[in-house]
């Protein structure tokens, strides 16, 4: 067992007992990075010297019993779309090459204030647009369980890094499933918080009304610790919410007996891999054993979720990404000619095909004559989808679905077919449409590949879904499987 394969809370406890110091954990992470990173491509930029120096400073605090917080001395990887002062932040896009922000995202700042160490910035689909991390302008990330396969996306680098022990935990962002789907593909636990719970300040916008920052970690308890660190109102983000402080780690230990979960029929239909279905149903059976009541329900508007999501998110993206014009920062096209040609060349060279596809789609949806039929109509359906979830939550405390309808696919398999790629998000996008919290929890392996179960909660009911996830993880071992290190064999015991 390597230190880098331990959970955040295990390491935290070792620190408390002064059995281990941050620099040892960091050294273990560095060693793992040296062993596997070349193969995995989880990071776009490493900052190991600075992280090691920070670890030694944390050593002193741990030794003195003066930890800054539960994350003091913990190596946490940061997705490349979260701004970090003095660090090139590219969103895996050529157009932001060379962009070094003079400010730090609020969520990252909070981690740093707790003493977290940042080994590096993780790979992602360009501007978080994608479900495989193949849209990274620099290199694809690989799935640690099978490097022939994708780690999911867009936070594929963060998920792969945590799974492989290249970090103890990571921050990702989730616009349509970008934390949960890679968490499922890589066998880690990933939480997308309620829209507004975590400040978006410093998160490079993809689709502002969907984007949320959240943790990817080794289990629900780690996610609770991470969430406690990053949640909270931020005066710099008008959409962040004043919500009473919740002690997420403490809420994990509640009894779940008597809770009701709903299984929406529409998420278990055509297109769902039978192996995935089997593992989800086995997990549901486990929950039932814990005294959770299971009901079937129907979310009839689910079929509209993908078009609604792609219309609105692309519309917002087309506007959010318009600022990358090569005038003030980032990569600019060479040569001076007239302004329009300069813009065109800068953007033609700077953006990848998927980003261009979304910009065109979104621009079209907002254009005069199409706005009503596309953007506005999608907003109306969005309201209906929100209401449908509200109705469902009158009956159930949480909704359980597969996180992804399929197993991790092979690199290149879906690149040529954007629609097939978009279908990867079919179970996760409705959650972003309604701004709900959801967690993806490892629930077993099929063909040696991890499968994730999604637990969706009411707005700001992170404590409820993390509680369910934690109680489930207390009686299961799927989340303890590691692609590297000694615990690997455990996957076969499931």
């Amino acid at each position, binding site marked *: 067992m390597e230190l880098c394969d331990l959970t955040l809370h295990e390491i935290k406890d070792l620190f408390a007992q002064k059995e281990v110091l941050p620099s040892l954990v960091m050294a273990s992470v560095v060693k793992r990075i040296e062993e596997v990173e070349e193969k995995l491509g989880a990071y776009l930029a490493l900052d190991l010297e600075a992280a090691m120096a920070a670890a030694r400073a944390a050593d002193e605090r741990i030794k003195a019993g003066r930890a800054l917080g539960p994350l003091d001395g913990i190596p946490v990887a940061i997705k490349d779309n979260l701004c970090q002062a003095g660090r090139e932040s590219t969103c895996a896009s050529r157009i932001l090459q060379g962009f070094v922000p003079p400010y730090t*995202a609020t969520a990252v700042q909070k981690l740093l204030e707790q003493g977290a160490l940042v080994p590096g910035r993780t790979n992602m689909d360009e501007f978080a647009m994608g479900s495989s991390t193949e849209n990274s302008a620099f290199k694809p990330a690989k799935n640690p369980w099978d490097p022939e396969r994708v780690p999911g996306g867009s936070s594929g680098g963060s998920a792969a890094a945590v799974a492989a022990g290249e970090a103890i935990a990571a921050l990702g962002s989730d616009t349509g499933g970008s934390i949960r789907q890679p968490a499922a593909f890589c066998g880690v636990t990933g939480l997308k918080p309620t829209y507004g719970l975590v400040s978006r300040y410093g998160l490079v916008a993809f689709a502002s009304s969907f984007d949320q920052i959240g943790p990817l970690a080794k289990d629900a308890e780690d996610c609770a610790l991470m969430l406690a660190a990053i949640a909270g109102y931020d005066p710099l983000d008008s959409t962040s919410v004043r919500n009473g402080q919740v002690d997420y780690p403490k809420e994990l230990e509640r009894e779940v007996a008597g809770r009701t979960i709903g299984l929406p029929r529409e998420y278990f239909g055509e297109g769902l891999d039978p192996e995935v279905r089997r593992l989800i149903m086995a997990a549901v059976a486990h929950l039932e054993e814990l005294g959770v009541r299971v009901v079937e329900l129907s979310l009839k508007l689910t079929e509209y979720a993908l078009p609604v999501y792609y219309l609105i998110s692309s519309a917002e993206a087309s506007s959010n990404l318009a600022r990358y014009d090569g*005038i003030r920062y980032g990569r600019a096209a060479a040569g001076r000619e007239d302004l329009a040609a300069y813009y065109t060349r800068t953007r033609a060279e700077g953006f990848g095909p998927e980003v261009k596809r979304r910009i065109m789609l979104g621009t079209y949806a907002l254009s005069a004559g199409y706005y009503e039929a596309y953007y506005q109509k999608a907003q109306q359906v969005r309201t209906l989808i929100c209401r449908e979830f509200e109705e469902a939550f009158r009956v159930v405390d949480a909704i359980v679905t597969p996180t992804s309808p399929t197993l991790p696919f092979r690199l290149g398999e879906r690149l040529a077919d954007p629609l097939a790629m978009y279908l990867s998000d079919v179970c996760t996008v409705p959650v972003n449409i309604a701004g709900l919290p959801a967690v993806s929890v490892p629930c077993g392996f099929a063909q040696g590949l991890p499968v994730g179960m999604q637990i969706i909660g009411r707005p700001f009911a992170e404590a409820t879904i993390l509680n369910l996830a934690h109680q489930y993880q207390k009686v299961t071992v799927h989340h303890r499987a590691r692609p590297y290190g000694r615990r690997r064999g455990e996957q076969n015991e499931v």
Partner: protein
Amino acid sequence: MKFEAVIGLEVHAELSTASKIFCACATKYGAEANTQTCPVCLGLPGTLPVLNEKAVEYCIRAGLALNCRIADFSKLDRKNYFYPDLPKAYQISQYDLPLCRDGFLTLASGKRIGITRIHIEEDAGKLMHSPEGEGFSLVDYNRAGVPLIEIVTAPDLATPEEAVEFLEKLRRILIYLGISDCKMEEGSLRCDANISLKPAGAETLGTKTELKNINSFKALGRALAYEIERQAELLAEGKTVKQETRKWEEAKQRTLSLRSKEDTQDYRYFPDPDLVPVELDQAYVAAIAASLPELPEAKKRRLIEEYKLPEYDADLLTGSRHLADFFEAVLKDYCNPKAASNFIMGELFRLMGEEGLAPEALALNPAHLADILRRIDQGELSVSQGKKVFEKAFRTGASPAEIIAAEGLRQISDEASLRTVVTQVLAAHPQSVNDYLNGKTKVAQFLTGQVMRETKGQANPQLIKELLEEELAKLRP
């Protein structure tokens, strides 16, 4: 054929909030380029706007002063277009739910000009182009994110004169409200005009053109007059007016086509997802309404009624809230409003003109002016002495008592000593005395002047006049 003009204005006023509309940067005019910027107003990736509540309050002040309905639910939208002075490539503005709508402003004639809407938005930066051929431009983002209100009128204006009057009245109101300094030369007040012609009495509107680059009140009047003539000529020749945007060229005093309607951009407005809707409760709006100052029209009416001032005086005095306040402050210590008004419109305006001083910068103590006016009324100072003392007080801030003592300025009202001077003067100018006695009474002025000279201007002119008449009468044969 006779044509009638149909004119509507779009006025942009920069709000004089201390900080920008979505960040904490200062808004001071004239600072060194790009020193009043931050990651938010530079539109750097990941930054987010946070609405400055003051901008909302100022917009509502304008709305209330212009008789608008104030929305209880309003939102901010993105207006998307590419230009180097626009850091985010969209301007945050308001599209379909502005803060204020359906108001009006009344012209002197009593005609009401409809205010269609007033909304808040952010200003863009400023481009400075290199000299011809050098092929580069510089951008100053100090102005990017400065709050603006856009005021859109109904097409209710019929003549260039009405348009100019409207804009002047509007400017006066915004300055009274303390929400904008409205300096057209600094660009803190900008005006575009829409104008079309239709046959006199016709119902349907003609094709309009939009006039831009109007940089002064005079330019507004001239640009509209030019455009009326241009369009009338076209129509008279049976040609059509093209719907287009035209630029006023100040140097050549003409409008020139800038772009046609076909080139109009699609701004792809949509609600800004980074900002939450603005929801206003009635108590908040009522509190703003209660805090509004007396507006120019009301103040003018009151000055006419309360102080029996002529309309002309009241209009000039209420040209600035500071000036009107100054006038009323003078009347705290002095009870002849018309005399005070005359002195202000005469002497004060003259001195302010010489110094190029705006009413807001006036530092003169109103009690000093009251003191001078009282001394003149009491015969202690002649009018010309009063003016002299006033000028000193205006320039130095010293009190009239100090100035009078320092300059030895006193009016001689002592009858005996003045009579001696008068008899001396008459004895020294026998020819003039002769002329006077022969009916050329105009020489009295000359004789008065001689007395003044002898007394170094300190004699009471009224008394000189009486004594001269008495002494001349004694010399009649």
